[in-house]
């Protein structure tokens, strides 16, 4: 077990963050599997619509519920788990519906929200909605279940900050002071169909209607009215999620590839997590090209042809291709080494550089080998 696994040993929650395409989901699964093998009840929660974790864990269906990865699957891969491994895929829409059901005072109100067209868009299509629900689900799992470790794989956000900002941004839409002040009279009068012109000044409302159409505003007003009284519950929960993330039982694992762009993004995110006081367990540089040639000038085609001749098989074309391949490889390795050095110099926590493997990691046996390296 390596340094990262050490740092995660005392943690109950590991949050894997990083740009898309760096192998975040695979690492999340490896971290989870590693702990389950060592003994522990572990859940790996992914939010990925491409079902990458399902592929990696050999699970055919992953729903919004936790599924046990069967012992025989592990046994087939030559693994014996002293603990248990569970996996699930977050369904943002279902999580929204559950959240509404949890906070709605009665069935009628719940159904009215479900039917609202804006709610339907908000819960399924609004940018940031997935990120918010990932946080929400994490809180539910952390407070209501008895896992020793929950590994959360975060959505491949367009902007790393969405993950931290989405809950506040969406909550702000559900109700801020302005909206509440405006809506209060209608709600207290028990009226459902809110008149547009109560929204604050006829001139403003009429001009807005020209922009959006009056019925869109009506839908929105109805939506706001439905959420009255529930807002505080949502807000409290979001605040609880945020303070949960700053607790010492949480460890963020930042994952990057060796590309400059990915390193930039991860360092930016690292800075933000530090500013928010959130605990960083470590930084993983994934798929790094290993350096194969020590110091000194690279061999050219003639050097290699001579060496091949010593093996009794001189071949000029083969030697030339070998020379070119080594030189390209070393160039990629040099660029990668430079970027990984920058990533590690400017970040805290455990530092793990994983070499690019000969094969993709997509089965339990290779996930277990990856877990070893962590």
């Amino acid at each position, binding site marked *: 077990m390596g340094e990262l696994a050490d740092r995660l040993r005392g943690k109950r929650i590991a949050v894997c963050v990083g740009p898309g*395409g*760096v192998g975040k989901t695979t690492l999340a699964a490896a971290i989870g599997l590693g702990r389950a093998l060592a003994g522990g009840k572990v859940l790996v929660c992914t939010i990925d619509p491409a079902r990458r974790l399902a592929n990696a864990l050999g699970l055919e269906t992953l729903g919004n519920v936790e599924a046990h990865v069967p012992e025989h699957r592990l046994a087939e891969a030559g693994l014996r788990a002293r603990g248990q491994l569970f996996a699930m895929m977050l369904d943002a829409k279902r999580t929204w519906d559950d959240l509404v059901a949890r906070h709605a005072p009665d069935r009628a109100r719940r159904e009215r929200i479900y039917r609202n*067209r*804006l709610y339907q868009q908000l819960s399924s*299509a609004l*940018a940031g909605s997935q990120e918010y629900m990932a946080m929400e689900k994490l809180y539910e799992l952390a407070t209501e279940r008895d896992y020793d470790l929950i590994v959360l794989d975060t959505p491949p956000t367009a902007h790393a900050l969405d993950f931290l900002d989405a809950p506040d941004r969406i909550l702000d839409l559900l109700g801020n002071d302005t909206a509440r002040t405006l809506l209060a009279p209608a709600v207290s009068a028990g009226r459902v169909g809110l008149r547009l012109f109560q929204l604050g000044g006829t001139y403003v409302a009429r*001009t807005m209607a020209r922009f959006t159409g009056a019925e869109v505003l009506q839908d*929105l007003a109805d939506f706001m009215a439905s959420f009255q009284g529930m807002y505080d519950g949502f807000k409290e929960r979001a605040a609880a999620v945020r303070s949960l993330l700053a607790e010492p039982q949480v460890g963020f694992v930042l994952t990057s590839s060796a590309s400059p762009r990915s390193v930039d993004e991860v360092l930016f995110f690292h800075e933000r997590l530090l500013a928010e006081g959130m605990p960083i367990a470590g930084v993983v540089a994934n798929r790094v090209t290993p350096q194969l040639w020590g110091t000194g000038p690279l061999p050219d085609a003639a050097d290699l042809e001579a060496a091949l001749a010593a093996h009794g098989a001189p071949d000029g074309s083969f030697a030339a291709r070998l020379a070119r391949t080594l030189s*390209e490889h070393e160039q990629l390795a040099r660029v990668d080494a430079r970027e990984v050095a920058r990533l590690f110099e400017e970040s805290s926590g455990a530092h793990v550089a994983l070499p690019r493997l000969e094969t993709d990691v997509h089965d339990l046996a290779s996930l277990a080998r990856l877990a070893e390296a962590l």
Partner: protein
Amino acid sequence: MPGLALLDHRLLIVTGKGGVGKSTIAAALALLAARRGRRVLVCELNAQERVAPLLGAPLAGFETRQALPNLFTVNVTPRDAMREYGIMTLRFKSIYDAVFENRVVRYFLRAIPSLSELVMLGKVLYEVRVQEHGRPRWDLVILDAPATGHAVQLLRVPGALMDTVPPGPLRRDAEWMHALLVDPGTTSLSIVTLPEEMPVNEAIELDAAVRGLLGIARGALFVNAMPEARFSAEETSRLSDLAAGGAPLGPAALAARLQAIRAEQAGRYLARARAALDLPTVLVPLLAREQWDLGAVEAVAAAIAGSGEAGGERAEVEALSPRLERL
């Protein structure tokens, strides 16, 4: 000529999994079109700008800015797009400022789901159809779209609004935008992938969404960072022995073995993508470069331009082979 034929459209949408090189492909396509004398605009959406720096040009921001001759870039942000759209709808800046800078109104506008996607997409599509001096302002607009999931969310907004929003100004805008997106003579969507398992899986899912949910005409599949098949099977089998030896042959053979394994795997994922997707494929070779700069974009552009010829030759060879068999 899948690569170059794409340039005959008015709007090219480039998307794919995060980290596969969408911006590089978008920049290379723009370069190819611009060098053929067409006026090109590349749009990024609320992004950390990638295209202008790749071309060695300063960041554009929301103001369209020339990066190279005939080649312009812009970064569309929701706030600026909303403002531009608002002024266009209301016709007077003073009215926009009076109404839309009002904090109650700003709050409600933000609260309308998908409105920011709609106005950003609206800005891009407006650039496609806007005329200047009796001809389109741009010969070609290239949208460097967000990654798969977000791209589908973005591109389905007009269609979704047509289903959910009652008749009115929003609905009318959604309608013309949708019509432009699904017109195969105007718009073409290309997917970028790497020859690796997960990116190919995602490309296949994305393609299904494009055909089903979005209904946008499909252009090509760009397979980026494709390692060349450099060593024969016989040579590859020798590499393991050679790799066990000392320098200089050992490390060279080790690098070659890694290259050969990678090329073999890439070939398999390419075959899988080709079998699952009836799309012309454009192969962009894996480039070993110190910096991703204009030189790299030019190399990618040359590969795209060359892929047409290679594809053409292959098609010809395939057409000839039955005759050869008969002979």
